[in-house]
């Protein structure tokens, strides 16, 4: 299995398309950092205008921690797309170029193949989020320096002392990996039904966008289903930047995401083990 996983990763990382994701993350982060470097102070004053009369904030406010947080907020929709770009292509992309036919004439089980591809997609997701951490957090820290982090929320702002921030980021990135693994599992599930990679990628994004809208709508008719939508739990990482971290809520969100991941993976195995390969 390890040898097969190595080969699967080799295939993924020899494709130019794979590096688009890393390029997009890098470009977005750098653009954001440039923007914050030139107009960050005005941006912050605009965000603080409602409470500036009650509070006098001083020091290195536009620091690496704040910039990294803003970058993560802005990439909420893009990162799932970048994960789907690879995970959605795992089965359908191979069906499209015809190699799935050849792969499945070899003496490996379909279950093995799905598990290897899922493991490879998860490793890709981990590397992408790690790269995001390097570019968004560590590069921002290198450019803007350290400082206490101000987390601007719609109804409050939270001040986190600089010595209390880094562990929160580590946990947030860990949670993001879990959330994005759910996206990878969803993409792979859709990939099992398709014979070209574009369909599952678009379908994944469609599902994420529609469910995210549903999750954010405060309408009574959706309130009943909101707690069960995985998109409502994908933003659980933000909890690590509250003054009192809501561990119970984060654990619950992580459980829901794990449940969805297992469900999508199980669905993929069930369907793919019965699918006629006509491509």
């Amino acid at each position, binding site marked *: 299995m390890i040898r097969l996983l190595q080969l699967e990763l080799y295939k993924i990382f020899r494709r130019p398309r794979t590096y688009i994701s890393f390029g997009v993350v890098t470009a977005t982060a750098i653009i954001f950092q440039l923007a914050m470097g030139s107009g960050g102070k005005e941006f912050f004053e605009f965000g603080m205008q409602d409470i500036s009369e009650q509070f006098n904030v001083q020091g290195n406010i536009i620091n690496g921690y704040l910039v990294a947080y803003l970058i993560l907020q802005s990439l909420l929709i893009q990162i799932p797309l970048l994960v789907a770009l690879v995970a959605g292509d795992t089965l359908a992309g191979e069906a499209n170029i015809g190699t799935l036919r050849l792969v499945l*004439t070899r*003496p490996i089980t379909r279950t093995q193949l799905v598990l290897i591809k899922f493991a490879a997609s998860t490793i890709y997701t981990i590397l992408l989020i790690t790269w995001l951490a390097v570019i968004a957090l560590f590069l921002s820290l290198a450019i803007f320096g350290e400082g206490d982090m101000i987390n601007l929320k719609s109804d409050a702002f939270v001040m986190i002392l600089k010595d209390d921030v880094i562990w929160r980021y580590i946990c947030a990135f860990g949670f993001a990996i879990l959330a994005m693994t759910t996206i990878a599992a969803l993409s792979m599930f859709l990939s099992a039904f398709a014979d070209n990679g574009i369909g599952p990628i678009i379908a994944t994004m469609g599902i994420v966008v529609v469910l995210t809208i549903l999750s954010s709508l405060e309408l009574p008719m959706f309130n009943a289903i909101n707690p069960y939508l995985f998109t409502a739990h994908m933003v659980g990482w933000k909890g690590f930047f509250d003054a009192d971290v809501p561990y119970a809520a984060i654990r619950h969100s992580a459980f829901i995401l794990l449940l969805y991941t297992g469900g999508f993976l199980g669905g993929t195995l069930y369907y793919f083990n019965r699918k006629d390969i006509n491509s």
Partner: protein
Amino acid sequence: MEPIVEIQNITKVFKKINAVSDLSFSIHKGDVYGFLGQNGAGKSTTMRMLLGLIFPDSGRIIINGQEFNNGKRHLLRHIGAIIERPDMYGYLSGWDNLKIFAALTDRSIPATRLHAVLEQVGLKGREKDKVKTYSYGMKQRLGIAIALVHEPDLLILDEPTNGLDPQGIADIRELIRSLSRDHGKTVLVSSHLLHEIEQVATRMLVLHKGKKIAEGMLSDLLNPNEMLVQVGVIPAGQVQARIAASSWQPMLVGASADQLTFKLHKDNIPELNRWLVMNGVNVTEIRSKHSLEDHFLSLTNDQATATRAI
């Protein structure tokens, strides 16, 4: 002799269309088994079922004495295959492709074996080039190398000469002969180019609209008792009336301005010639044909006629 593969009464229906109907056959060790049929006859579907790519609706597939199903995919270690087009990872080199597919087995295959199989298919020296730079013929050769690399007992080649130039076709033909003759491989090869099968197969099966319409040794299927005899005559028009009134009429299967075609026993050819001359017909040539293609076409046409009659 124990068969390597036994297909027992398999049926596959796609959206109410019978792709394969109640098909049974066996492939024995050492056979070069020709799988003949027009496009859409069910050849590829049958091969896909044999490889576990498609699941039959009913029937059994037995590989080396064990029933094959999705839970027994390890039996595929005995089979190497290339189905339809030789599709590979174009952004990787030939060597990388070979290495990846070689790893998709349950045992480790040394690099020396990879080199040997590249040598065998004539790709040595080009293995470091990306596959997207390969010609179709080279891809086909690499596909065969992939099918051979784990040293299977049975090689399945679906339309291996499709899209190749004449030299490529001759090379593949020679490779199939060599695999059987020099390496003791059993080969299942399909084609709609019947003369290709005729030149390499020892046994064959004719498939038409998902049904087996003939199977056996090539020599048996050729049926030496019946031949298509083309007689060049001047003129053909007048003699047709005389033939219509004679005992030759049931054997006349075709007529044009200067040619008559009979289906008859080869011993009757001198008698027919004599009768034509005695009836004042100028015979310019007599040619007897008995290629597999004629036989195949007659089988499929008869089957189509029978189907229409039903």
